[in-house]
């Protein structure tokens, strides 16, 4: 059986209560989702994020929200983003936007230069950042820089915080203050609900106005599971702590083996190795990691933290590969 360490999923299943709640959601699948159930989920998300629930919009995965924002809010604006990142910038958005400026993050630090960034925001712009960044795991902006950006009313800032629970850093507290801020989140990662796709948006006033008449697009089993998950979030915290602890263990082991390891704040590890066909050699041993060599920088791979036994297997196989080359 293949060990999947390439899609940044959570290796732990959610608890039995959550699965039971999802199953309960199947009882009336001939009906659309009940607004009351949705409202309860929004209330819980509001509490979880310490934000008014009317500033939350829920969707089937955060990708759809990001795509919608890029498509709608890029018109007559410059899109500013970083390379690498996986944002879905469509051909439509490219045509509507004034232009697209990508800021290249370079090794070994992958830092986003704040002066260069602010220089790029001298005209109406939509700045899209993933914080922490995928695949570097780097936290690209802090509160101070975010506020500097947001004070410019011509700039809309969309920050994807898919890995918030791992980084511990969020801009959610700025949502009330800045109408031009939007933050996307997901319960796919830390809450172990990738298969149900529960994404949500925290909206500053500017975005709230647009999404106010937007139809909610999420299934009842997903609503029920997410609601149950938020009622007992301890499981998420326990799993997150285990993942973070395993991440540190893998990083240390890889460093000992001579790999270049880039410290990140998510549930994955970016590494560089000169071992040719590293991912293929692991694939042959039924371990799948993400090869960034073909579309980004040669020799770079992203490894999702798995279960301890999967990580042990990974390290053992890497040891064997290293001994054979």
């Amino acid at each position, binding site marked *: 059986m293949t060990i999947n360490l*390439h*899609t940044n999923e959570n290796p732990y299943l959610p608890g039995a209560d959550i699965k039971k709640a999802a199953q309960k959601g199947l009882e009336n699948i001939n009906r659309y989702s009940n607004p009351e159930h949705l409202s309860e989920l929004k209330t819980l998300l509001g509490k979880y994020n310490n934000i008014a629930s009317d500033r939350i919009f829920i969707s089937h995965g955060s990708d759809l929200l990001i795509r919608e924002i890029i498509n709608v809010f890029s018109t007559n604006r410059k899109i500013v*983003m970083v*390379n*690498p*990142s*996986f*944002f879905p*910038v469509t*051909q439509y958005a*490219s045509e509507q*936007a*004034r*232009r*697209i*400026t*990508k*800021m*290249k993050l*370079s*090794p070994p630090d992958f830092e986003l*230069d704040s002066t*260069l960034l602010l220089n*790029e925001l001298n005209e109406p712009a939509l700045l899209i950042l993933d914080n922490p960044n995928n*695949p570097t795991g780097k936290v690209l902006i802090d509160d101070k820089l975010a506020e500097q950006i947001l004070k410019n009313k011509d700039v809309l800032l969309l920050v994807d915080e898919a890995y918030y629970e791992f980084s511990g850093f969020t801009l959610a507290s700025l949502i009330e203050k800045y109408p031009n801020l939007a933050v996307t989140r997901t319960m796919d990662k830390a809450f172990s609900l990738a298969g149900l796709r529960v994404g949500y948006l925290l909206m500053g006033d500017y975005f709230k106005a647009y999404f106010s008449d937007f139809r909610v697009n999420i299934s009842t089993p997903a609503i029920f599971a997410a609601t149950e998950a938020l009622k007992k979030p301890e499981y998420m915290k326990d799993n997150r702590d285990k993942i973070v602890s395993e991440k540190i263990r893998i990083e240390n082991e890889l460093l000992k083996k001579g790999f270049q390891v880039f410290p990140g704040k998510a549930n994955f590890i970016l590494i560089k190795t000169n071992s*040719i*066909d590293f*991912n*293929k050699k692991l*694939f042959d041993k039924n371990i*799948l990691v*993400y*090869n*960034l*060599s*073909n*579309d*980004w*920088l*040669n020799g770079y791979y992203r490894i999702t933290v798995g279960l301890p036994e999967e990580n042990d297997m990974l390290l053992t196989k890497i040891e064997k590969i290293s001994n054979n080359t």
Partner: protein
Amino acid sequence: MKKIGLIVNPIAGMGGSVGLKGTDGEVYKKALELGAQPVTPQRIEETLSVVNRKDLFFIVAPGKMGEDFIRKFDFKYEVVSAIDKKTNADDTKRIIREMVEKGIELLVFVGGDGTARDVYDVLGLTIPVVGIPSGVKMFSPVFALSTFAAAEIINNTSEQIIEKEVLDIDEKAFRDGKLGAELYGYLNVPKNLNLLQSKKEPSNVSKPDKISKEEISQYILEHIENDVLYILGPGTTLATIASKIGVEKTLLGIDAVYSAQIVGKDLNEKGLLDLLNKYNKIKIIVTPIGGNGFIFGRASKQFTPAVLNAIGEENIIVVATDDKISRLECLRVDTGDDGTDNRLKGHMKVITGYKTETLIEVK
């Protein structure tokens, strides 16, 4: 059935194991004296063992140049031409020509930079190639990243093609610890679709190379100023721009265009300096070398410090496809003059498509 040519440079890579940097010319004899062993058999067999397409028909070079390896597998194949015991670059070129006559749609070659140059001499930008890395010197981005990556490219059915540079490394200088690289040409390479993983790419917008070049060219065309002399560096992106302007450009040379007319072709430093004296407003358009990111100091040495200083760094326009720029850590300059290099260092915007740019560090 898809017809694929397969040719192996049997001596490529032999210099590496005995500490010689390459096997060009007489160095091969020395490598043999030092007990060098062939490395190509392992490379080609590693690749062929993971090629799993059933619709392939190989047109193979004879003996140690191909046939000896493919016969160990189940592929359908036909051998072309004949060779003597000792083979050289002329054999490689002659056999590839025969393969072209047989109607190959893709050429798989095994070798190093020298072999890539021989392949370019025959094919240019006609039939796409897959280069299996086996030489000591493989600075040309034309090679697949590994033997497995080469197999992935052969297995995929993508029609997407990317032009990759063939570099001419000065082997003698390389042995002396210096790296001198000239742009020798371009070969078409099918895009690797990463068959082991999903198609989502970290470069955000992935477009076929050809469309990227068209978009870059259209954008440049719309921003051309009629009273400016444009000096176009080497490369296919620049050739596409020239074509959009309506002129034909030297692929590997430096040409000058003014008011949609060629006013200088294949210019050297003197030719460039003469033009700089004649025209008031001048801009350079260049593209980095894939893989290492050099914009000046490699491939286009005619852009000397004297030329660059006369033009000014504010008049340099850099263009590159999204794919190329995504694979670079940074841009690089090495003009041989620290003052010029320092003026060029910092950050630069590279035009990567229509209304699309990447801000990247220059080192």
